[in-house]
């Protein structure tokens, strides 16, 4: 299945990109994807807490992703 990952702030800085597109196995969960993303960042996200949003909503718990989902790993926000 195809997943779009939106990158902001330190995640964008780590990858140098606004967006990643990934092809994942069916049934991949948000926390499995987070592990992949952290590994891919090669340490650059190690000290950064990330909250997950799927299709523009924060998720309180892990879920299984579906084809076409838009995922964001959200570093601490800094509005205001």
């Amino acid at each position, binding site marked *: 299945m195809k997943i779009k990952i*939106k990158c*902001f*702030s*330190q995640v*964008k*800085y780590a990858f140098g990109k606004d967006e990643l597109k990934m092809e994942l196995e069916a049934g991949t969960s948000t926390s499995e994807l987070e592990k992949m993303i952290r590994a891919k960042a090669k340490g650059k996200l190690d000290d950064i807490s990330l909250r997950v*949003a799927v299709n*523009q*909503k*924060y998720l309180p718990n892990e879920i299984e992703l579906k084809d076409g989902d838009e995922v*964001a790993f*959200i*570093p*601490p*926000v*800094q*509005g*205001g």
Partner: protein
Amino acid sequence: MIKIEISEGPIPFFLNDDSRQQDGAELIFNGRVRATEHGDSITALEYEQYEGMAEAELIQLAKDTCQKFPIHDLFCKHRIGKVDVGETSLHVVIWSKHRQEGIDAMSWFIIELKKRVPIWKWAILEDGSRIPSECSHD
């Protein structure tokens, strides 16, 4: 009533309104960019948003604030893109019958905004480089 706007460019403040009959307190907060960010001298901040989600979260937060506190109206504009030192990045107006509920609502609204609305700051340093700001400010 709630008005929420996230936009680029300088923030036009909400207009003066002398027509209200039962709102004895108008409280306005303008968050402005300081020349120092975590000890570094900066020339500007650049605000980045998660387009769509930032506005949805801000609207939900405004609704939550109006439910939690006995206030009448909450208007909020958040600027994104480059904001020079001294300029306003956040403009909030709260109308209420009495002062204290407006102060409490303003305080809570901004604390929550800084926890949950997906907007981030990039510091633009004096040498022109651009780095994500390292922690949430207080």
